[in-house]
């Protein structure tokens, strides 16, 4: 390559630079610190430029000398060597010396004249006194390493899987192929599209290509590897040298992501392996290898399952839209049924099924595990028990139970309260426990589990249980119970949920925060949940919270009375029977129904909601079951299952007993969602009342 014109540029540029350096050096001594730093940078860059340019023409004398000067300048720049008149004088001499070396080249003198050589060595020795850099290190770093070429052309196999960022980084697989062509002959090439995803997952700026190349060349392996130097970090590059054994190819096949059979065929297509060699290697389809490979393919998938942060608002919006979709699809299904078009019906049922799946997966997006929330309480229990001088072990179970995120957020406060209560009032002090023959260390159980369409969270302790005498006397004192009133144990326990009740004899700074159990109960009821209490004096107490899985959508059972539609949450429907049919007789005097010998309380929705009209000849009973208590709801017609979005009731209706929300039917009419827990409580207390009065 004729670089003479460039050499002229080098002479001119070097002279300009050296003159500039001289100017800077002469005023360097008088400059303040900041300007000195800048000046040193400029001189360093000057030396750097001369060294780099000289290197282009392999002017070793200049490169070596300048390198040592540059090293010294670098150390001065880093303030490792201070500036004084001596060093400035030395650098000026070095500049002159470089100028002479340049002139020498310009005069086409290959050999260094003895006087110049000697003066150069003197300067280098002086430089070394300052910097400690020797000439030999420099020579070492300017080594020539050209790829050696052998004379014989041989066939290599190159396997390439480009990294996904290759294109974005400005590299082009095509360029590498074309560059290879300058090194030898591509005998065969197969472009692999196996990693190319489906359109939906396709990122046009990512690279998915793979190449298998049979390449005939006389250059050595290093030269081939160098061809892919710039992509080796992110791409998978395998180069099999000529004469590689079949087993090497099999190893390659095994390591690559494609199916073994497929890659085997590709290698045969490339001509790197023969069909016979492959057949010999795999007498039968090698199932074990294939299975191993599948396992390995699966492994990374598991590892790559990463989570992604999504704005909660977006999620809510999505779920809201899914809710609308559910309504719209119910409407379409209804219309399809009315039209009696079989095809339309089929399509609509497919649609309904898909919408259900979408709904389930959408709701699942909101589900998070209760674990992290539970763990938060460990700390509270630890800190509190220390303050109170108690020994408490907290046992968590069901931490992997999923629950709607909103529910988890809202349940956190009531749970905190219950746990504080247990630690404060439930579990006794170690001394007290020893006196009762209990282990010094009290136990607090926090558990979550699924139960008939609900999530149950329990806070239990092995403490003292509730003190019923004290509760009763306090309730009487506060006028919650009449002096002469007889109450069952459970009713006494439940008094603590009454507004304005506080059980602590002395208000400690922990639980006495003005928030009573009534607030806890109300918070839970706002989540359409319930709380119940199970206390065993001397053994401990258990608070059991039942919560719906989600707040947004319910599977309901649609019934109708007169012109009104009602939705009963499906998970609470036990069975449907005809009133006064074979299985179910009504006893109007005693106000119960007899379901195959089982006595159940019942409510007539017609009467409860005063819908008016006259009951049809045949009425139906929906048997509902909530928390182990069954009751019958008498309705006119059973309409069937119905999936619906819960719309909150307006403020005006919030006090109407028995209603939990409203929903829009497919035909646009409003259906009211029944508050089954409320109704069940209502009838079971009525039942108690009637039984008591009967006694």
């Amino acid at each position, binding site marked *: 390559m004729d670089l003479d014109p460039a050499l002229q540029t080098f002479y001119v540029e070097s002279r300009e630079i050296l003159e500039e350096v001289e100017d800077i050096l002469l005023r360097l001594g008088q400059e303040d610190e900041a300007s000195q730093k800048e000046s040193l940078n400029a001189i360093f860059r000057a030396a750097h430029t001369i060294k780099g340019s000289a290197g282009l023409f392999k002017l070793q004398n200049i490169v070596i000398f300048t390198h040592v000067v540059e090293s010294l300048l670098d150390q001065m720049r880093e303030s490792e060597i201070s500036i004084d008149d001596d060093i400035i004088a030395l650098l000026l001499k070095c500049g002159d010396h470089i100028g002479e070396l340049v002139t020498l080249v310009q005069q086409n003198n290959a050999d260094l004249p003895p006087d110049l050589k000697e003066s150069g060595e003197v300067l280098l020795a002086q430089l070394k006194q300052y910097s400690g850099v020797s000439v030999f290190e420099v020579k070492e770093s300017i080594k020539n390493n050209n790829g050696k070429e052998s004379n014989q052309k041989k066939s290599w196999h190159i396997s390439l899987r480009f990294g996904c960022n290759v*294109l974005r980084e400005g590299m082009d697989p*095509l360029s590498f192929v074309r560059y290879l062509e300058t090194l030898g002959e591509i005998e065969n*090439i197969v472009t692999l*599209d196996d990693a190319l995803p489906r*359109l939906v997952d396709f990122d*046009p*700026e990512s690279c*998915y*290509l793979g190449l298998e190349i049979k390449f005939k060349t006389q250059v050595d392996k290093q030269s081939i590897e160098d061809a892919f130097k710039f992509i080796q970090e992110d791409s998978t590059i395998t180069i099999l040298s000529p004469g590689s054994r079949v087993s090497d190819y099999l190893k390659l096949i095994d390591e690559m992501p494609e199916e073994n059979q497929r890659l085997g065929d590709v290698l045969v297509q490339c001509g790197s392996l023969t069909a016979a060699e492959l057949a010999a290697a795999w007498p039968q389809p090698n199932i074990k290898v294939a299975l191993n490979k599948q396992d390995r393919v699966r492994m990374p998938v598991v590892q790559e399952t990463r989570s992604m942060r999504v704005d909660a608002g977006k999620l809510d919006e999505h779920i809201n839209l899914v809710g609308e979709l559910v309504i719209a699809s119910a409407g379409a299904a209804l219309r399809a049924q009315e039209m009696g078009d079989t095809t339309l019906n089929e399509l609509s049922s497919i649609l309904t099924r898909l919408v259900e799946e979408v709904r389930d997966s959408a709701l699942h997006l909101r589900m998070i595990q209760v674990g992290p929330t539970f763990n938060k309480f460990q700390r509270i229990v630890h800190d509190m028990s220390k303050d109170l001088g108690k020994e408490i072990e907290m046992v968590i179970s069901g931490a992997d139970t999923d629950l709607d995120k909103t529910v988890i957020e809202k349940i956190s406060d009531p749970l905190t309260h219950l746990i504080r209560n247990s630690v404060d009032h439930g579990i006794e002090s170690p001394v007290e426990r020893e006196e009762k023959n209990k282990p010094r260390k009290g136990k607090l159980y926090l558990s979550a589990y699924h139960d008939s369409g609900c999530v149950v969270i329990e806070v239990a302790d092995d403490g003292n249980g509730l003190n019923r005498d004290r509760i009763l006397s306090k309730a009487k004192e506060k006028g919650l119970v009449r002096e002469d009133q007889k109450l069952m144990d459970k009713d006494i326990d439940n008094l603590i949920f009454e507004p304005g009740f506080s059980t602590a004899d002395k208000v400690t700074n922990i639980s006495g925060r003005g928030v009573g159990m009534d607030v806890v109960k109300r918070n839970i009821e706002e989540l359409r949940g319930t709380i119940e209490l199970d206390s065993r004096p001397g053994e401990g107490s258990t608070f059991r919270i039942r919560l719906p899985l989600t707040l947004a959508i319910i599977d309901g059972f649609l019934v109708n009375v007169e012109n009104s539609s009602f939705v009963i949450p499906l998970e609470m429907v036990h069975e449907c029977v005809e009133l006064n049919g074979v299985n179910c007789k009504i006893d109007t005097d005693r106000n119960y129904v007899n379901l195959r010998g089982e006595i159940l309380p019942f409510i007539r929705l017609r009467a409860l909601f005063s819908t008016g009209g006259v009951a049809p000849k045949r009425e139906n009973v929906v048997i509902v079951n909530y928390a182990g208590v069954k009751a019958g709801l008498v309705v006119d017609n059973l309409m069937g299952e119905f999936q619906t979005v819960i719309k909150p009731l307006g403020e005006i209706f919030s006090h109407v007993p028995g209603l939990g929300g409203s929903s829009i039917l497919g035909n646009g009419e409003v259906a009211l969602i029944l508050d089954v827990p409320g109704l069940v409580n209502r009838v079971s207390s009525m039942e108690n009342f009637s039984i008591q009065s009967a006694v």
Partner: protein
Amino acid sequence: MISFEEQGQLCCAQIEGDLTIYTAAELKSDFERLISDQRDMELSLANVSEIDSSGIQWLMLAQRERNRQNLSFRIIDHSSEVLQIFKDLDLSSYFKEPVILDQEKGE
């Protein structure tokens, strides 16, 4: 940019400008249409000014996705540049030669 011209059962698409990493992302909606159009598809590369591997990748995806749906796809008016790339990467058989397709149709 890809323009589409309907000729009955045939849809004639034409790529204008570059088919490179710089345009790969903005061509997405056009390629989505090209892949999903139920008519016979003919894609002309006559006005492609520059093409690179990302462009080739788009063409491969289009061919494969249309094959999957059993829809016809023909690339026509290859520039010498594209032909050279097909040769370099040995992709001619991947993108079926139009001649062979015609024979199939004739039978």
